[in-house]
């Protein structure tokens, strides 16, 4: 019987193949990851949406009430914006907090620039926007939101826009500013004044063309066409609640994510149990959909076929689903008290729901509405998939 004999080169190739194979097992992509904010404990949980499991937890992120996150374009790092002014950079693959800066006293959200190199944070105190190098979190620029007679305004609705721009609105001043960051240390600011009373949040269309600020102090929204900034601000839906008594607003609605289906956009009505439908060709009101409570998030499934809505206290145990073809409710779910956020998986077949008071994340099938998985989480709020890294304004 002939002994098995290998050529040394073959042996080398074989052993290399084994090494590569082992490393390939340890390696993983990050396109199916998501970050979950656990707002009371100052922690974030990293989960994966392929098998719907929890991977790890990162702590030491400070006060995460109203925290949100954006992602590096390689989908490895999350930038988490905390209420206490903390900006934290989390490596989602190694599950480590790699950088953190307490950049202000009180902040509300942030954005990552088109080229991925700058991270901007919108602050309440001191009112303004601060811009950081996304690699190091070193400060790059400071944009105080000054207005009137040496007043500063709280800043909300900060998004990135094509052309290395950041766009944001001033709650106290009723203004929207566009910051051109081509020269990062010296932003060039274009101001739109008199956009309306108390803009509470802003959003940008997925193509990066239209910025819209929702108004809290009056009915309506303020629209800016970023392709034609000379045209100024256009007020849309100025009287959507005319003649109706506004209800007390126990939670500010959010405009994060632009719920679009075809040529229709869906936004929460402030102080009303309604979702508003906007015709994006005419920017006129195309319908009002009565819902269970005051909407907080109105989110379109990525294909635009469904819109999911959650609600303010005392109706925050419920989620409703709207069919965007018929503009009718097709499902009412009751995940439990304290539904704070919903996030679709990248292609929309499943949706993650955070249920604060049950300390749970729930994952639903968006076709059957069946609850597929329940995972434990400590007072979860925002859920952010890394798919956002590829989308303008998120």
């Amino acid at each position, binding site marked *: 019987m002939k002994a098995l004999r290998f050529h040394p080169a073959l042996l080398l190739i074989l052993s290399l193949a084994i090494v590569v194979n082992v490393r390939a097992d340890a390696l993983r992509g990050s396109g199916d990851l998501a970050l979950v904010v656990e707002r*009371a404990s100052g922690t974030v949980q990293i989960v994966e949406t392929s098998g719907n499991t929890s991977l790890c937890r990162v702590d030491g992120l400070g006060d995460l*009430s109203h925290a949100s996150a954006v992602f590096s374009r390689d989908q490895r790092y999350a930038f988490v914006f905390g*209420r206490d002014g903390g900006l934290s950079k989390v490596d989602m693959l190694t599950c480590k907090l790699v950088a953190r800066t307490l950049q202000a006293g*009180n902040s509300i959200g942030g954005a990552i620039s088109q080229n991925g190199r700058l991270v901007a944070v919108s602050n309440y105190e001191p009112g303004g926007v601060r811009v950081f190098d996304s690699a190091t979190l070193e400060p790059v620029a400071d944009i105080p939101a000054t207005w009137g007679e040496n007043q500063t305004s*709280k800043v909300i609705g900060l998004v990135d826009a094509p052309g290395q721009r950041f766009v944001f609105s001033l709650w106290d001043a009723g203004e929207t500013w566009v910051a051109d960051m081509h020269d990062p240390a010296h932003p060039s600011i274009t101001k739109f004044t008199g956009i309306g009373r108390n803009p509470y949040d802003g959003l940008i269309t997925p193509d990066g063309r239209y910025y819209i600020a929702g108004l809290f102090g009056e009915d309506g929204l303020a629209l800016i066409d970023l392709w034609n900034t000379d045209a100024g601000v256009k007020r849309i839906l100025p009287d959507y609640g005319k003649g109706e008594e506004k209800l*007390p607003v126990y939670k*500010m609605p959010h405009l994060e994510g632009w719920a679009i289906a075809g040529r229709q956009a869906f936004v929460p009505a402030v102080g009303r149990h309604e979702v508003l439908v906007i015709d994006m060709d005419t920017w006129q009101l195309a319908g009002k959909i009565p819902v269970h409570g005051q909407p907080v998030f109105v989110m379109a499934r990525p294909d635009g076929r469904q819109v999911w809505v959650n609600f303010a*206290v005392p109706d925050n145990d419920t989620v409703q689903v709207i069919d965007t073809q018929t503009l009718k409710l097709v499902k009412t779910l009751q995940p439990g008290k304290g539904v704070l956020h919903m996030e679709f998986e990248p292609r929309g077949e499943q949706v993650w729901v955070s249920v604060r008071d049950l300390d749970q994340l729930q994952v639903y099938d968006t076709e059957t509405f069946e609850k597929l998985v329940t995972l434990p989480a400590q007072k979860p709020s925002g859920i952010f998939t890394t798919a956002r890294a590829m989308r303008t304004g998120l």
Partner: protein
Amino acid sequence: MSRWLSASVLSLLCMTAFSGETLSPQRRAQLHDLLVQDCGSCHGLTMHGGLGPALLPASLRDKPRELLIDTVMNGRPDTAMPPWAPLLSRDEAAWMIDQLRKGLTSP
């Protein structure tokens, strides 16, 4: 008249002296959650402020208690502070104000 007066004095006394005493432990736990989670969404989970002002003992010390309770119940016009009267009794609001003035601790 005097009977009305003594009745109202008595009820005022009850309100100040016994605020929260009549609340069940479960209700207090709920109200504590409401304070942290729902008041916290605007005022910050740690009450250091947000869209709404800070609600720390130091920032509330100089404000009359009844005024603070009124603010909770009726809201503040032209601001984002809503009236909580549809969801809370005055006694409950008083208990919550007292918690804030002491500084929030776990229930």
